[in-house]
């Protein structure tokens, strides 16, 4: 058994296999069909975007409050100037609202349909609304319907290039092994991200931001996912800059990742723009630790100790080959339950 084999097994464990999760796609299809048949919307095409479209998905960690999800772009055959950004979203929300117990919710970038299981939120489908500059020219600029009623200042049309983005990432690597390793590295980082960042709000760095950095900096390391991963993590580190933040009146680390120039997004779109200064500073501290922990793994001469360290970094899904030496960090009680327990 080798570290590379462990990484490979880890990848198999965390990789979201969309063929086995076909119920997500089935639900997407049912909802799309409902929208088409409603007669209340212009015609549209659909486009699988996000991790589904790029085969970069990881199994969500339920204990961290994450769910399975699929992002579907609805590209309407209509011009943005003919519609108010919120109108189509509201229509979609009305059509789909009673489809599930939890219903449909308008969010800033999309309309979300949430499914329950055993009385709890289980997975969701996000519909992102796009309209053309000129729907008769399918190469014309696409615009994303942004905003919700509770934040009227944010309502508007935003330049977007969903297909361009997916293509940009998918086309970056032509060789199968390179592409596979690249995707594995993204998944490792995503799983690390899920463990280390809160799922609420924008505390967690966006996956697209990570992916864009990785696409530009990834170096294929044959049979050595650890080094490939470390390379990308260090590149993320390098993007941070130290600056005075006037809101908090402190010196903090910040990061910015613009969308590639050749893509047709709003200029100055920052992939990490939704994070606050403090959250970006947290990102810096955590990525520093990530790099340090990975370097310690690399420097470790004892293979078993390497596995233990990696399990500590990536959680229980990183299996240590010898079960007798499994380091059950997550279950270790430093303050055992007392037999005379009171308030605990």
């Amino acid at each position, binding site marked *: 058994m080798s570290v590379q084999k462990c990484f490979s097994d880890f990848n198999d464990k965390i990789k979201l296999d969309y063929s086995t999760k076909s119920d997500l796609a089935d639900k997407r299809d049912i909802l799309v069909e409902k929208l088409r048949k409603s007669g209340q919307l212009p015609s549209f095409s659909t486009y699988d975007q996000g991790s589904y479209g790029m085969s970069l998905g990881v199994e969500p960690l339920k204990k961290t409050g994450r769910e399975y999800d699929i992002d579907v772009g609805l590209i309407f055959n209509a011009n943005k100037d003919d519609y108010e950004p919120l109108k189509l979203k509201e229509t979609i929300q009305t059509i789909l609202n009673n489809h599930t117990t939890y219903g449909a919710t308008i969010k800033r970038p999309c309309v979300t349909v949430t499914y329950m299981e055993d009385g709890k939120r289980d997975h969701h489908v996000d519909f992102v609304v796009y309209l053309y500059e000129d729907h008769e020219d399918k190469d014309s600029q696409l615009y994303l319907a942004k905003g919700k009623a509770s934040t009227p200042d944010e309502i508007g049309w935003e330049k977007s290039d969903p297909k361009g983005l997916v293509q940009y990432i998918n086309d970056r690597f032509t060789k199968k092994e390179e592409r596979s390793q690249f995707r594995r590295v993204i998944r490792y980082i995503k799983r690390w991200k899920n463990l280390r960042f809160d799922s609420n709000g924008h505390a967690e760095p966006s996956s697209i931001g990570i992916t864009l950095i990785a696409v530009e900096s990834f170096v294929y390391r044959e049979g050595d996912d650890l080094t490939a991963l470390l390379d990308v993590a260090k590149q993320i580190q390098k993007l941070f800059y130290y600056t005075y933040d006037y809101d908090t009146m402190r010196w903090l680390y910040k990061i910015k990742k613009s969308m590639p120039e050749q893509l047709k997004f709003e200029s100055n779109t920052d992939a990490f723009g939704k994070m606050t200064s403090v*959250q970006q500073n947290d990102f810096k501290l955590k990525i520093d630790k990530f790099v340090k922990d990975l370097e310690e793994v690399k420097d470790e001469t004892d293979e078993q100790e390497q596995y233990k360290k990696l399990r500590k970094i990536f959680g229980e899904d990183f299996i240590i080959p010898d079960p007798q030496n499994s380091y059950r960090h997550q279950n270790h009680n430093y*303050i055992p339950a007392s037999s005379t327990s009171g308030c605990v």
Partner: protein
Amino acid sequence: MLDVDKIISALLDLPYISDIQNRKTNRRGTEMYECVLDCDLLLVEKHIPISICIPENWRISLVDIYLQRYEDLPFMPHVEANGKLCLFNLEGVNIDYNLPGIVEQCVTRAKKILEQGLFGDVNEEFVNEFDAYWEFLPDTILMHFSLPKERKSQRISYVQKVIQSKDSGKRRYCAKTKILYGAEDSSYFQWRGVKNGERNGFYCVVCADHYILPPDFRKPIPLSFFNRLLSNMDPISDLVFKKIADAKIIVFNILQPNGVENCIGVQINGKIIYNAQGALEIPEKSGLTLTPVVIHREDKEFLLARTESTNHSGKKILVIGAGSIGGYMCQELVHTGFDNIEIVDHDCLKMENIYRHLLGREFVDWRKVFALKEYLMNNYPKLNIVASDQKLDEWIDDEAKRVRQFDLIISTVGDHKVNRSLNELIINNNIDIPVIYAWNEPLDIGCHIAVISKKYYGNYECLFARDSITNELYDAVAYTKPGQTVSKSFSGCNGTFIPYGSIASMKTVALSIEWLIRILEDRCEDNYIISEKGSGYYFRKAGFETSDFYNDQKDTVSILSILELENLRKSNSNEPSNNSGRTA
């Protein structure tokens, strides 16, 4: 030296911790710490600023976590007035000396407490610790209170004791200048040594259909809180009302729906009246003050609850002998909940006794029984101790008929002659009362107790045998080899004693109490000789030899039924066993 980087590193692994900052100052309020880390704790939709404070003695006290701005949060359980979270009950807990791990676990626990406090149902948590939150109220008065046995609203008495400044200077009391004592009857005040100036108070029982929660100790208690309690009590008679209408102290005994009992009080400078709805209330008036009273219960039921022992109140125990074993025995009987004890001993306490007796110098030259009675009655509530300073044989002659009133007899005299007399009395008078005979062996070789009841086979005489050659009577369970003189004397025949330390008597008493409880709870189904072996180190060092009975005993504590003892003796002497069909 504290490695702060390791702690920060552990915190960085937690997804619900953000913005960690190492404070330059290590002080938090009046407390000093090795290190103080400020950060945000991320709950579902809230960022809660906290301070993680690591004390020098973290191996004992763990880590303190404070809310930086408790005033911005609702009142919730497990948070003290200064914002400190009550994380773990450390009583009896052993911890792993891994500071980063401990910090991580404490933070996780803090998150759970806050999530529960903000989003969960906290009623039971509040109710279970109601009294603790009451103590966080500012400017409280302390009251020692013996709760009435019957949970019924009634008049009580209370006495106020003002602590003089010189006493406060000696730090004998916990920074209080006024202490109250309250009870339903006056004997409590006598026992407590507080007399004079009894006033009327009101003991109010509130049976709550819905949880009554403690008030937010960060704000003044509203009058409506107390009036709600008054409106929830059962009606009282006019006679009781007349007595309590002017009461300035009200003690509320809240019986919560989950069975928890809370006890709090208030001092008022107003009256209690009936409102238009016929319920009692304290009317609003200008200058009304409501001072919370913290109740420390001193009723026996509450005090005994700490020992987890069954209530043995009412059982009558006769203790024969008030010496080393007898003294400790009486105290442990009281500790175990027995409140009805008669002690018989003619002897006086001498100075040479004090290092292996419960009592000390202040009782020298007292009759032991009266000294014990005085000591116990002064220190424990609601006891009925009868002291008889007769010689046992005289007592037996005079009181033989009374013996039947006892539930159990314990002989602690450690004298076979006396014990055999008692045994004979029991048999001859056909008295069906179990008897425990308890005695020490010399020095450190051990102790025995014999548990004898008429219901089962054998009696005290079965502990003796006759030498097969000389026909001499000997103690068949003695740990000392026959033929040795182990007794000592510093002053001739009248000063003879068996040497043993205080600890030997305590072991004997511990064994006795355990078996006494078994007997009274019907968990003892035969007559037994129970022998606890000591190491014998000092015994052998003094040049003495131990008996075969001692040497053959494999376990530290040997439990033999009388029948087993007899069979053992016979097998050792190759005589046929007694197969009477009884099994041990």
